[in-house]
């Protein structure tokens, strides 16, 4: 039942982002209540007055969760590689959520720079979690570059639209059985997370859907339950959808069955 992720084992298959929460306290509560064990973080310039990480960091450290720093807003392999190096220094981990944005409007990944950055970082011993599209060719190149993990988007970051192309994600799952697949970006509701897990994805990563909920703590728990439910359903063998109706109650012995043809 445990989840082997990049050589470590976890109970929860939900990875939570730490941005946009009403306060660091609500963030930490959400993490604790949802029993999340991996959270994404980022780096920024130190404020001029020289204070280190701010309240955010002091509180977050105490949750002793695994950190997954990201290269948010990077738009070239060069920027992403430098950010990864700095993040490794700060968070003392070789895990990196590799984001190389190719389009400001849709925040779509740039497949070209992404694969280049992945190649470099994998060669330097990073465990690369690449934020990518559902494009099979890009996925193949990322795996070829050394990625053991792929993080295809469900829909644009922060849009909460859920899985707009289930058949493409399903194809990725089928084509990369040995790769850890995590749906990242666009999950807006627990039902979206459950749907990803039902498709056989290994985990789900989301931020906005919890941070922007009226009650983030409760929403984090809802997502945690939905991810468990989806995983359980995947293992329990879902019924295949059928084109037309099939009665569940047996018909044969209903008392008016004579009066009507079977």
């Amino acid at each position, binding site marked *: 039942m445990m989840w082997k992720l990049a050589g470590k084992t976890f109970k929860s298959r939900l990875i939570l*982002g*730490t*941005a*946009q*929460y009403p306060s660091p306290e609500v*963030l930490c509560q959400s993490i604790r209540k949802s029993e999340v064990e991996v959270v*994404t*973080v*980022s*780096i*920024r*310039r*130190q404020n*001029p007055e*020289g*204070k*280190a*990480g*701010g309240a*955010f*960091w002091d509180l*977050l450290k105490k949750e002793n969760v695994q950190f997954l*720093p*990201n290269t*948010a807003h990077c738009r070239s392999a*060069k920027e992403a590689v*430098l950010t990864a*190096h*700095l*993040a490794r*220094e*700060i*968070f003392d981990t070789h895990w990196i*959520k590799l984001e190389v944005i190719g389009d400001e409007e849709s925040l779509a990944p740039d497949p070209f720079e992404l694969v280049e950055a992945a190649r470099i970082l994998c060669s330097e011993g990073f465990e690369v979690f690449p934020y990518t599209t559902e494009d099979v060719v890009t996925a193949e190149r990322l795996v070829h570059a050394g990625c053991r993990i792929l993080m295809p988007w469900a829909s644009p*970051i*922060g849009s909460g639209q859920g899985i707009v192309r289930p058949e493409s994600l399903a194809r990725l799952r089928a084509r990369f059985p040995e790769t850890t697949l995590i749906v990242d970006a666009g999950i807006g509701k627990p039902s979206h997370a459950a749907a990803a897990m039902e498709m056989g994805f290994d985990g789900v990563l989301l*931020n*906005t859907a919890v941070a922007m909920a009226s009650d983030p703590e409760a929403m984090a728990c809802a997502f945690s339950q939905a991810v468990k439910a989806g995983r359980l359903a995947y293992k329990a063998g879902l019924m295949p959808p059928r084109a037309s109706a099939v009665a569940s109650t047996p018909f044969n012995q209903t008392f008016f069955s004579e009066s009507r043809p079977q």
Partner: protein
Amino acid sequence: MKVIVNGLEREVNESHLDGALKDLSLDLSYAAIALNGKCIPKSQFNQTKITEGDVLEVLVPQAGG
């Protein structure tokens, strides 16, 4: 000499990075340093030279999605 620290011009008169950082009295507990676009591990602060116009970036943790 003048160096750029996080985009702002600062005055330091130290030849090496470790001195310069102390000079700038920065809290480096959770920070990482980039010099001219290259990440400098803490262990190399003392051997890394600083020259006029160098660009220094001091990075710290931040929330992230």
